[in-house]
């Protein structure tokens, strides 16, 4: 079972090797001639006016939280989506075709979960957490 993941290890080694070669090339081939002007942080040619250690906009944090909630909820959908053909079939699913009648079980199960998800999105929307100002 785990052998099907072995190719990933091979790919990882090749990819890390490739990325490593680029990084080593950078320090091997490129010359380094620092000057005081070059060492100043770039700010369109002016001397930096402030330190980048700032309190960044709250909205970014809010987006990160929303992402966490909605992406995890999307992940809960995946097994349901894969099994949907079986869940909405009374009999057995053979080769993708249902033998036996249809049932609304699959869609109803998800309707409950989806309602909560949509309610959450509406709440977030109404609370103006998606606005950017």
């Amino acid at each position, binding site marked *: 079972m785990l052998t099907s993941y072995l190719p990933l290890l091979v790919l990882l080694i090749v990819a890390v090797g490739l990325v490593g070669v680029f990084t080593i090339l950078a*320090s091997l*081939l490129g010359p380094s001639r620092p000057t005081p002007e070059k060492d100043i*942080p770039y700010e369109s040619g002016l001397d930096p006016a402030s330190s980048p250690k700032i309190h960044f906009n709250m909205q970014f944090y809010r987006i990160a939280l929303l992402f966490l909630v909605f992406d995890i909820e999307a992940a809960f959908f995946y097994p349901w989506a894969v099994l949907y*053909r079986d869940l909405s079939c009374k009999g057995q699913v053979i080769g993708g075709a249902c033998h036996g009648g249809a049932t609304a079980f*699959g869609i109803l199960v998800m309707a409950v979960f989806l309602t909560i998800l949509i309610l959450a999105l509406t709440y977030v929307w109404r609370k103006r957490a998606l606005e950017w100002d």
Partner: protein
Amino acid sequence: MLTFIIATAIKVVFFVVLFGLTLSAILTWMERRQSAMMQDRLGPVRANIGKVRLWGLLHPLADALKLVVKEDFRPPHAYRALYVLAPMLALLPALLVFAVIPFGPPVCIDQLGAALADVGGMCKPDQLHYLQIANLDIGLLFVFGIASLGVYGAVLAGWSSNNNYALLGGLRAAAQMLSYEVTMGMAVMGIFLVYGSLEPMSIVEQQSTMLDWGIVKQPLGFILFFFAAIAETKRAPFDIPEGESEIVGYFVEYSGTRFMVFYLGEFIEIVFVGTLITTLYLGGWQFPGLASDGFHSFFGFNVNWLMPHWAVVALQMGAFVTKVFIVCFFQLAIRWTLPRLRYDQLMALGWKGLLPASIFNVVLTAAVMLALQSVK
């Protein structure tokens, strides 16, 4: 075991290094030629080795050479370790996601070395070869898991540069990539519903006729997924994080080879989006009308052109590469077609437009599938 590892290594070299890296190098040239043509100028055509010019196709080589021998500038105000790590983290996920993309049908190679079709699962397991680096049941879950790691490259580049512009650019890039990832995960759900699998090879095998293609069964899902994928790769019209000349982005303090790694990562992502959209929505390696022993119908005409299986496989791989190329071409052409979105418009489109639309697409798909089931 050893032959298995060697076979995998060969596949990695062919699919990722030869196909992925070469196509992305060609795309850097194609993007500039395309923009030049749209603006009525010539674009890069002058790079040459002696008399050989190849319409400018040598420019990617010249660019790489130039960037590699440029000064290796590491700003003293940056956090060194993370500054070096960030471009590596940006490129690595873009290479890893190629693992599950099927480049061709499963091939059965018998003791005599002849290629046969795997008809009805008759092939012995040790003779069955996938033209896919890893045949994972969770294939697409792996893709989305790894692809979401790409955000670290942008965030760490912005933060470790210790530069006002870079930090803001990094934050904007992170928020954009996170927002559109939700849409992407939701939009692709329609495909899982229709094909009942997370495994790309099985999804492609179910798209045997053009009417079974994902784009036919999931037209809304295709559009939503395409938009979200372009936003994920930070391409125009969603290119606020890196808008090259006007907006200072998260890799402002990077130059030379380290900049090249970011740039390469972006173009490999374009190629990857091309392969993913081809696999999910455009029938992957399926050649319209081509069965495993040749053509029985050719665009509506009844024919009986039989051909050896290796020729079928070659045609199918050719079909895959052609489709990927067309999707990549389209991604590049969008750049000079649509104006860039403002940042608040971008976030509004993601959360208030595409996300509700993709949830609607899931409900619609499920309802239609149930209705079709009941009619039968």
